[in-house]
């Protein structure tokens, strides 16, 4: 067999294999022949190994157009986009693109590819490679882009001309999409309207470049370590999807000179407690840490690096269920009866999330949006809505056990006297049921979720809980079902379907949802910063008022970092940090 699971195969003569009469095919250990890079003297090149355990799941794929833990590692070191974000995560620095120019109207970006930059096999990195990669991402069907669904959903935030239409199948002509390589060194991107977040979004993990030749030659095997052609600071060395991904410094990388660590060993899916144990014993250098556990361990606290604003935990009203949930006052009352700080306290690493925008980190956020914890106010609202005698019970579906679930149930029980039935569903079931109308009309039904993304206003208004999302959830149950019928209608071609869906949303959604959608789009296109922020806030206020989605907590991520690790500058993005900056302090 080739690749990932076993690189070197050595017949392991475990005692007793003979005794039991079993002939094992041989049992492969990985990386036995790992060359220990020379040059202990740091000035002469990368050296040493750094071990990271920041993924609780497996890394199924190294395809950046795949939404999964892949986004932890690929953009962090294996593949590079046109730009990288800076340490603070609020601006970009050049990467595959050496420089760029913005047109007067701020709607055309012209990127100049880095001269002399090459793929790890020596091919030059061209603007054509970039166009090919983006095209792959935006093509809705076909073998090469099968994972587009996840990754490309972030693209609408970019506002590239024709991108959304192309992705939805409404327009199949690539020429209509505002991405083109005018020559090997120049990539031109046209936007529909100016977008202040555009460059920052270009640092998003799905916007990295792929090596067209190897993908076309090896549709399945291109991501095997031995076939890998990348333009990042590292190339994969061994990859066992469920347990480890080892990467070594890429000598062809344009900035190889500043790469300090020779090998990055990403340990995957390791049990959290075992991870911490290994960190404590010095076997791991950077690990994710559970906030509640950290709270209990003063020694560990000193090694903790926190990334605030990483994401948000929210409740989503489901269609169907008890009709009380369709009353905005009820939803608002439910939201007001939540002591978010208490929830955050038991969950750890979070703070009370008073709006759907993580206000603790997104610039321009205004506390005026915040929901207050006001049980009396909530009861008054319920009275007004005619539920003074009591609300029906509620139900919450979620996928895993977390302390806040029971804390929330307690709070609602105490404040409103309702019982919250917590249903933990297996992931697949949750996926299948969360958007289906809930059938039991005696319960108000919610599902719980988390989102994470860039800490910009545009991202949290336009992209996460964005216009379509809000309009869809403001639909009545019947309208939602009708909407889905259109969605599933195979007789409509892409363009017609897109139009029909837009029609359905525009006419049937809550008028304020429609207004929100319009404001959000308008805000993104606004060049003036103050005015833009104001419009975003106006839109966000409408969204909070409708309370179809109830914010609970703003989450942060915690890392325990060994004392001698330097250059670990985590940002509120999945990839956290770029490996190229990591180093080990002397002595």
């Amino acid at each position, binding site marked *: 067999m080739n690749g990932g699971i076993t690189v070197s195969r050595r017949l392991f003569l475990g005692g007793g294999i003979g005794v039991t009469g079993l002939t094992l095919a041989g049992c492969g250990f990985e990386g036995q022949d790992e060359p220990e890079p020379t040059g202990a003297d740091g000035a002469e090149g990368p050296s040493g190994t750094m071990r990271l355990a920041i993924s609780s799941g497996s890394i199924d794929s190294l395809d950046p157009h795949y939404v999964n833990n892949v986004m932890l590692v690929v953009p962090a070191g294996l593949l590079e986009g046109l730009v990288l974000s800076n340490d603070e995560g609020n601006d970009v620095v050049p990467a595959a693109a050496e420089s760029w120019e913005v047109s007067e109207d701020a709607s055309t970006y012209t990127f100049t590819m880095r001269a002399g930059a090459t793929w790890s096999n020596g091919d030059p990195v061209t603007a054509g490679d970039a166009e090919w990669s983006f095209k792959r991402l935006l093509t809705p069907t076909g073998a090469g882009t099968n994972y587009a669904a996840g990754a490309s959903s972030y693209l609408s935030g970019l506002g590239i001309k024709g991108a959304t239409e192309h992705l939805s199948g409404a327009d199949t002509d690539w020429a209509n999409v505002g991405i083109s390589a005018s020559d090997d060194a120049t990539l031109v991107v046209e936007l529909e309207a100016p977008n202040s977040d555009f460059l920052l979004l270009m640092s998003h993990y799905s916007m990295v470049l792929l090596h067209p030749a190897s993908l076309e030659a090896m549709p399945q095997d291109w991501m095997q370590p031995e076939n890998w052609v990348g333009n990042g600071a590292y190339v994969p060395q061994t990859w066992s999807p469920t347990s480890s991904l080892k990467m070594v410094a890429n000598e062809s990388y344009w900035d190889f000179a500043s790469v300090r660590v020779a090998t990055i060993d990403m340990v995957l899916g390791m049990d959290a407690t075992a991870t911490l144990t290994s960190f404590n014993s010095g076997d791991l250098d950077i690990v994710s840490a559970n906030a509640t556990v950290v709270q209990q361990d003063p020694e560990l606290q000193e090694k903790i690096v926190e990334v605030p604003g990483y994401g948000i935990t929210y409740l989503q009203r489901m269609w169907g269920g008890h009709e009380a949930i369709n009353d905005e006052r009820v939803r608002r009352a439910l939201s007001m009866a939540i002591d978010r700080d208490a929830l955050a306290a038991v969950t750890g690493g979070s703070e009370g999330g008073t709006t759907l925008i993580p206000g603790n980190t997104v610039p321009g956020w205004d506390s005026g949006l915040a929901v207050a914890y006001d049980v009396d106010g909530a009861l008054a609202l319920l009275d007004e809505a005619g539920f003074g005698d009591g609300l029906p019970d509620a139900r919450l579906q979620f996928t895993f056990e977390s302390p806040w679930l029971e804390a929330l149930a307690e709070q609602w029980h105490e404040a409103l006297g309702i019982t919250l039935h917590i*249903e933990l569903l297996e992931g697949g079931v949750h996926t299948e049921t969360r958007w289906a109308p809930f059938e039991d009309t005696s319960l108000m039904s919610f599902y719980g979720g988390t989102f994470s993304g860039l800490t910009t206003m545009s991202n949290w208004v336009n992209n996460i809980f964005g216009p379509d999302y809000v309009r869809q959830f403001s639909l009545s149950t019947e309208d939602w079902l009708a909407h889905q019928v259109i969605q599933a209608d195979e007789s409509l071609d892409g363009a017609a379907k897109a139009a029909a869906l837009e029609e359905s949303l525009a006419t049937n959604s809550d008028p304020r949802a429609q207004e929100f959608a319009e404001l959000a789009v308008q805000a993104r296109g606004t060049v003036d910063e103050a005015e833009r922020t104001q419009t975003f806030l106006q839109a966000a206020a409408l969204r909070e008022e409708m309370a179809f989605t109830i914010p609970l907590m703003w989450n942060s991520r915690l890392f325990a970092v060994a004392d001698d690790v330097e250059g670990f500058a985590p940002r509120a993005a999945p990839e956290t940090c770029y490996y190229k900056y990591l180093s080990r302090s002397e002595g």
Partner: protein
Amino acid sequence: MTATVKAPAAGPGPITISLPPPRSEWSRRAARFRRNRLAVLGLALVALACLTALAAPLIAPHHYATINPGQEFLPSFSPGHLMGTDLLGRDVLSRLLFSLRTALFVGIMAELLSLIIAFAVGLLAGYKGGKIDQWLMALTDVMFAFPGYLFAVLLVAVLGRSTWAVILALTIASWVGQSRLLRAQIMRMKTLEFVEAGRAMGAGPWTLVMRYMVPGALGPVLVTTSFGIPANMLAEAGLAILGLGVAPPTPSLGTMINEGYRFVQTNPELIAWPVGVFVLIMLAFTWVGDGVRDAFDVDES
């Protein structure tokens, strides 16, 4: 008891014999069980555990789900919280009591259900034999080869996380072994003389099986049952780790061990209590099982 009976005519005339008091098989078995002191201790522990579990609502100092903000992670032997509190400030002792309830309920129910299936399949296959036997055994072969974990995942997927889903998953995993055991027992019993005697007297299949065979097949079945209950509890703990256990807020030993496991370095008592209780119950059932084995052991010296 002493009685005068007329001796057989052929014998040397009437004699007085003293008869021992009637002693049923069950009282003999009980006596043999009692002779195994560990078994008695085990039974006492099991009984205690069951009583405690039943009385949990009465004796638990707090409600198992009551969250006490600000009282998180109190150490054991804190005032008001004998075993301390957990990460939500819930009373560990109360949760443990209710966990016991869940664990025993799950363990015993799953065992009962699998016994019912096993009786149906084992008796049918063992008694009928032939084609029916072959088909049923082929079925058990398939079920035996099928990974139980997959069943658990899919069952929990379909039924949602609930106590009953766990019970069903465990049942599906364990009925096969019991069925085969019962079948083997019935096949063995079929050849015994008193079963033949029953047939010769005109007993129908139902009578033969239920009255003649089942009581005799009970010994080994009871032994596996007493080992099966703690095995189910162990399996529940395993499912809980995979996120397939009993749904919160219902506490179970599995979830408590899991939760405690996260804090094993900083608050080891959070895991020590449930593991301690769990191991004790396991031991108790094992001892009971040994006692049952003794009680039914015909090779008594």
